[in-house]
């Protein structure tokens, strides 16, 4: 084919639109024809120049945002997005509040358990462990009359491994209460009795064995009173004494 026939096809060749066989033929022709190859080269440069020069206008970013906002599925998306965000914030706040409550409760509980353990240790270390020395519950109970703002029953211990040593008035958080001292196989148990309060209830709960400095501490509420056992005796002894107190309270 002559140059005259090839020249109109140079554009299609450069646009990669010439059929493969024809493109191969033109390729071969361009290698041997300086006139056509020069024209192909300049047209290809022209194409590149137009490619660069044609990208003249750029949209304003604000305009782009506006159009995107107008087409994006925003109404429901926005609502859902908003709900998800608010929910996440609420969940985070609740988590913080709940965490703080747990932390505060834990910290109050630690403080209370610490104070009770200290009271028990102080009693053990004292030369006069009790103010009313008696193994007779009918002597100990009346002794507290007028000394503490409540009354309570001391369990019958006959036939049990427990022995009542006596009692004394004690204070927890400026609140008067009774401390009864028992022994079981040479282990000493302090049973503290206070008027129950929401603070005590929240801090101590019920029926959960706590430990501090190797002492076991058990707490329960019954008839408006808060009972606490602090001892180095084992769980079974604690449960036994607790059951006896609960029965006596009925």
């Amino acid at each position, binding site marked *: 084919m002559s140059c005259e026939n090839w020249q109109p096809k140079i554009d299609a060749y450069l646009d990669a639109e010439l059929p493969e066989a024809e493109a191969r033929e033109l390729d071969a022709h361009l290698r041997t024809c300086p006139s056509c190859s020069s024209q192909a080269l*300049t047209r290809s440069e*022209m194409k590149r120049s137009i490619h660069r020069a044609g*990208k*003249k206008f750029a949209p304003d970013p604000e305009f782009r945002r506006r159009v995107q906002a*107008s*087409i*994006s*599925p925003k109404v429901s998306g926005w609502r859902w997005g908003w709900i998800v965000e608010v929910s996440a914030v609420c969940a985070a706040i609740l988590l913080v509040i709940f965490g703080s409550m747990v932390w505060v409760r834990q910290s109050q509980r630690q403080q209370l358990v610490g104070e009770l353990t200290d009271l028990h240790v102080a009693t053990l270390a004292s030369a006069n462990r009790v103010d009313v020395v008696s193994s007779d519950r009918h002597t100990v109970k009346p002794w507290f009359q007028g000394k503490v703002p409540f009354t309570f029953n001391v369990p019958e211990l006959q036939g049990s491994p427990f022995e009542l040593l006596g009692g004394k008035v004690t204070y927890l958080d400026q609140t008067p209460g009774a401390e009864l001292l028992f022994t079981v196989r040479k282990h000493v148990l302090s049973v503290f009795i206070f008027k129950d309060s929401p603070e005590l209830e929240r801090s101590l709960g019920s029926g959960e064995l706590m430990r501090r400095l190797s002492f076991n501490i058990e707490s329960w509420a019954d008839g408006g009173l808060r009972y606490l056992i602090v001892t180095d005796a084992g769980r079974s002894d604690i449960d036994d004494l607790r059951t006896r107190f609960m029965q006596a309270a009925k």
Partner: protein
Amino acid sequence: MVLNRDKAYEFEQLAMPLFASLYNLAQWLTQDRSEAEDLVQETYAKALKGFDSFQPGTNFRAWMYRILRNTFLTSRTGLKAARTVPIDDEDDPQSVSPSTTETPESILLARADHDAIQGALQALPMAYREIILLCDVEEMSYREISEALTIPMGTVMSRLARARKAMRQLLAEKVQGAYR
């Protein structure tokens, strides 16, 4: 018609990447920033509305450009531009004979700078300008151009050949004018 959320999301994913090039084409057509913005905005609104009629698997870019172009052609500026465009679309690109009076292209190009090319593009009739932009700037295939302009492939080739010839002539005038 209201698209469901998934469909609207699909449209956004397909249409937004074309934003910059559609805007560029719009401003080349309208020659005015504010009109170009209105045109693009309207194109996106129409395309979203008619997205259900888009055939998956066909060329989305060509479909979007077709909407942009049709929207432009029904606007005041578009109607005026269409009236002033004399197009002699013969399907034989070979009928576009090289002008013997043309300045050799290599000399033309050596002298035509970026601004001269932009000026020549601007001065071209709309139909020539758009086909050159679609082919050389957007790098659309002849098939895509044929879909975008809804013209046969043969017409794409002949119009492109005429448009390029007109471009070279305009450039020659500009360059020769500048060196006269």
